[in-house]
Structures are given as structure tokens and as C-alpha cells.
């Protein structure tokens, strides 16, 4: 142990030794416990009242009597189509379970079965697949990076350079990345072999991976021109330009893409491509990711100030109706920016929120339960330097 640690230990013990005995805290602790219990009951009753008020049919005027034999009936479907604003108050946000999907927390990559040390790497993007965590680390020049794989067997090992986009399939079987004009697809099952044989096909410049399917098809969106759905033999289907999200719920699939309406306005359209039918358009919201079952769509405001969205929404994927909007509570001097999001389950969305003042910033992962319109803290908040892009958390 070094000198500082020894002095620290001595100092802490010496300080504690100087503390005189305190009066018995049992009674005061019990008293405070009952006070906490009362507050919780009041909060619970208030919440129930709020739900009942929301459930009263609009035709009932104030003063109307609702007897116990005629309880107001909440219409679940209409409730879900009424947009509900959810505000996040970091001071009172209840703590929930840790994230159920892999994520990066400082120097560790955490997943259900344990954690991998990132070996000092500072990735800006992570994709999770069965062979470990794929980490895209900036090479300090341009927008390309080096791709590492961390699998817990030692330091993360580099597998590709000049990589500008990565993605993994939902079942964890395939990892795809774009490097030097080639789309490369690797199979987790082959990674344990001495010489895995990834397949690669040429893609247009600047192609960004939007989605990787369990069948190893990859949806890429080039800088210009229509999006391409590629299989590993290079067979492609052309899709509308600027695809932002895609999902395959069951036999059909949904697609969201941006089209230019006029000089300044873009519209996000959702298409049921299985039925070849445009479902809805929106000039207000741009879809980023559909929920796994295709019920909801996570979306950000189409017009932002360039610093990131301060409000995000969950839409009904089939109709485009806004069912939830989420933002940081006002009035505490904090500006909340949503940096990233990922679906944890069909109904639960994890949001990476950066709450910033001029002096500092905190980052937290917030869980939104869409049907319940409730938020809770999944992990954090932790302090970061504001405006640097550094984040202790990344969603894999």
C-alpha cells in the first residue's frame, strides 16, 4: 500500500475515533420510518386518484356522481392513443432493475452473464453478439475506427480497421461491419475456429448499417441513393432512400424512411413493406427504432437545434399516433438531452439521458414502460464532462 493510502486509512480511523457516542437512534429511526410510510401511502392514493380522474369519461361534468356500482370504465385502447407526456425528475426517480440488455459502463461491458473489462478502450459504439462485444474505437482521424472484440479471454483483440459502421443481429448470431467499401458479415459460430471465414460484398461509399437480420441479411443506407437490403452473396433489394429504422415483426416488416417534402421539410414515412402499403407520414417525428414486436416506434423530433433531442416520443407503429412523449422535468436548471435509446423488451425502452448545466453533466439510463407511462432509473446518474461526447454508458 502506498503512502497516500496509508495516510488516508489513518486519517479516516482517527477522524472516526474522535466521534463521541450518540443518543440511541432506534426510536427516532422508527418514527422517521412511519413518516416515510405515510408519505408513500399518500403518494399511492394520489396516483390512484389521478388514474381515476383520467379514466372518467369526458362527458361527465364536475359534480356528477359516480356510484360505486358504476365505476368509471377505463378504455385501454383510447388511453393508449392519448399522448401522455412523461417527465423525468432525477431527484425523485425511483430506482429500478439494472438494464436487461448489454451496455457499457465506464471500463466494463456488462451483460446478463457477467462483465468484460474493456482494457482501457473508449468505444463510441457497441454491438453485442454471441462471440462477445464488438467495440468500435475511434482511430483519432475522420469517422472511421478500429473494431475490437472483447470476449473475456484477455484484452479485446482488433479484428478490422477503417470501420465506419457496425451492427449485430437480434439473435446474436451475426456481426456485420462496413470497412473500405466492403460489407463484412461474420458468424459467431465460426469465431472459435482457427480461421473464421467472414463473407464480404462491396457496398457504396459511406454506407451505414441500419439493421442485421437473424438470416444475415443487412440493410445498409448509403450516403446517396436508395437503401439496400443485401444478403451475403451480394444479392440486393433496393428500398426507399434514407431509411432510418426497420423491423421484422412476424411475416411482414415495417420500414421507416425520410423523404423530402420541400426545401426545408422532411417527412418520415412508415411502410408495411410486406403489404407494400404506406401506413402513415409524419413531419414532426423521425423513427429511430421499432420495438422488437413492431408495436411501437421510438422517434425523435424531426427538427432539433443540432445539440440532440430534448424530447423523444414513442409512436404507435401502425398508425403513427404519438402515444408517449418524454422529457426532463423543467424548473431545476438542467437541460436534458437524449443521446441514445434501445428497446429492452417489447414494451420497455432504455433511454440514455444527459442532464446538463453550464457547470456539469450527469448521464443516466432511464427505463420507460410504454403502456404504464412510467419511468424509472435503470442505472446512474454519473457525472461526466459536459459537451465532450464522453459517456460512461453506451447501449449495446
Amino acid at each position, binding site marked *: 500500500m502506498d503512502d497516500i493510502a496509508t495516510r488516508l486509512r489513518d*486519517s*479516516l480511523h482517527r477522524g*472516526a475515533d474522535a466521534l463521541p457516542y450518540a443518543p440511541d437512534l432506534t426510536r427516532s429511526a422508527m418514527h*422517521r420510518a412511519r413518516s*416515510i*410510510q405515510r408519505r408513500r401511502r399518500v403518494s399511492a392514493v394520489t396516483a390512484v386518484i389521478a388514474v381515476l380522474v383520467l379514466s372518467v369519461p369526458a362527458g361527465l361534468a364536475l359534480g356528477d356522481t359516480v356510484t360505486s356500482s358504476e365505476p368509471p370504465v377505463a378504455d385501454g385502447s383510447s388511453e393508449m392513443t392519448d399522448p401522455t407526456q412523461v417527465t423525468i425528475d432525477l431527484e425523485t426517480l425511483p430506482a429500478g432493475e439494472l438494464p436487461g440488455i448489454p451496455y457499457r459502463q465506464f*471500463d*466494463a461491458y456488462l451483460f446478463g452473464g457477467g462483465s468484460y473489462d474493456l482494457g482501457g478502450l473508449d468505444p463510441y459504439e457497441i454491438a453485442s453478439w454471441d462471440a462477445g462485444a464488438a467495440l468500435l474505437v475511434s482511430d483519432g482521424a475522420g469517422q472511421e475506427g478500429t473494431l475490437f472484440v472483447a470476449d473475456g479471454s484477455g484484452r479485446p483483440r482488433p479484428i478490422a480497421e477503417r470501420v465506419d459502421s457496425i451492427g449485430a443481429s437480434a439473435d446474436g448470431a451475426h456481426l456485420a461491419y462496413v470497412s473500405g467499401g466492403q460489407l463484412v458479415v461474420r458468424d459467431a459460430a465460426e469465431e472459435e475456429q482457427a480461421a473464421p471465414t467472414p463473407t464480404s460484398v462491396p457496398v457504396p461509399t459511406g454506407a451505414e448499417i441500419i439493421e442485421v437480420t437473424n438470416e444475415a441479411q443487412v440493410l445498409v443506407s448509403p450516403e446517396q441513393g436508395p437503401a439496400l437490403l443485401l444478403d451475403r452473396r451480394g444479392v440486393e433489394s433496393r428500398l426507399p432512400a434514407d431509411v432510418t429504422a426497420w423491423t421484422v415483426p412476424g411475416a411482414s416488416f415495417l420500414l421507416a424512411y425520410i423523404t423530402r417534402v420541400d426545401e426545408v421539410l422532411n417527412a418520415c414515412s412508415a411502410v408495411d413493406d410486406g403489404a407494400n402499403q404506406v401506413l402513415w407520414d409524419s413531419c414532426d417525428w423521425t423513427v429511430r427504432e421499432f420495438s422488437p414486436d413492431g408495436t411501437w416506434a421510438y422517434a425523435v423530433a424531426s427538427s432539433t437545434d443540432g445539440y440532440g433531442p430534448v424530447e423523444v416520443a414513442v409512436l404507435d407503429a401502425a398508425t403513427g399516433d404519438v402515444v408517449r412523449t418524454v422529457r426532463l422535468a423543467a424548473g431545476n436548471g438542467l437541460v436534458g438531452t437524449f443521446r441514445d435509446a434501445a428497446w429492452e423488451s417489447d414494451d420497455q425502452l432504455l433511454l440514455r439521458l444527459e442532464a446538463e448545466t453550464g457547470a456539469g453533466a450527469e448521464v443516466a439510463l432511464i427505463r420507460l414502460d410504454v403502456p404504464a407511462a412510467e419511468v424509472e432509473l435503470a442505472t446512474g446518474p454519473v457525472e461526466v464532462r459536459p459537451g465532450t461526447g464522453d459517456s460512461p454508458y453506451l447501449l449495446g
Partner: protein
Amino acid sequence: MDSIKSGREADADFSDYVAARQHALLRTAFVLTGERASAEDLLQTALAKTYLSWSRIRDPRAVDAYVRKVMVNEHTSWWRRAWRHQEHSTGQPPDGVGTAAAGSGQADGVGERDAMWSLVRTLAPRQRAAVVLRFYEDLSEAETAQVLGCSIGTVKSQTSRALASLRRQLSEAGATSPAGGS
């Protein structure tokens, strides 16, 4: 009657626990907060929350760990609340947690005589919690990670940053504090 009896038994168990462990826990609260009044308040809050969860803590050996965890979380959340209520004009986080007098360290007779003790109070709450758990409570890195709810790597980095900060500050102050070196 059973529920009343079991409730009374639970109260008696809780009282016994507090009587046996209060002083040790208060010492931990004190090194976390650096102020006696805040320490008593912190421990009282932690014990109140423990009392509410008493029936769910099945392993008596786990109670200390539970109280410690509540104290660390509560202390961090006090600090955050105090920070948010500041004007943020200086960019400096508040020292201490809340309304206790700034000079109460002096009243406790330890603050100004020990440079290291004063510097510990300048650490961010998670770093402070990490060093208190590691160097005062003598918890392992894994046990500390459990209390802080983070990975072992984070405990290592928080502890290392805290020690580096203390080393730097002592160096900047000339490391000449008479009591600092003990």
C-alpha cells in the same frame, strides 16, 4: 395477535440491532459526510429505510451491508440534490451535504487538524464512498462494487482517481500540513 406479536418481535430485533451496531455505523456515516450532524441524520434515514425493509432482510449478517448501501446511496443523492439547488456559477460541487454548518468539522475537533481529512471531503461522493468502503471499512473491491452497485473495474478507477486527486492536492498544498502526514 400473531401479526402484532411478530411485529413486536421485529421491533425488538430491530432495537437490538441498532443498540449493537449504531456506533460503528455512525462512524461510517461520519467518515462519509465529515460532519456529525449530517452523519446522525444520514444514519437515521438509513435505519428508517432498513426498518421498513426489516421483514425482507432474511440474513442477519446482511443487515450491515444493507444499511451501508442505503447510507452510500442516500449520501450521494443528498449531494446531488444540494448540487442541483446551487446556482452552478462556480462549477464547484458543494462540500458536505446540506445544511450542517460548514465549520462543524472544527466542532468535532478533527477537521482542520488533519489535511487529509479535509481533502477527503472535497472528493466527489462516489469517490469518497469508494475510499471509505475500501480504506475505512476494509471491504474488498468486490464487496465495494456490491455496495456501490457498479463493476469492480469502476471501483478500481474511482479509488485510483480519488487517490490521485488526494496526492495532487497534497502536493499542491506543499504537503506540509503538520497533521496530514501523521
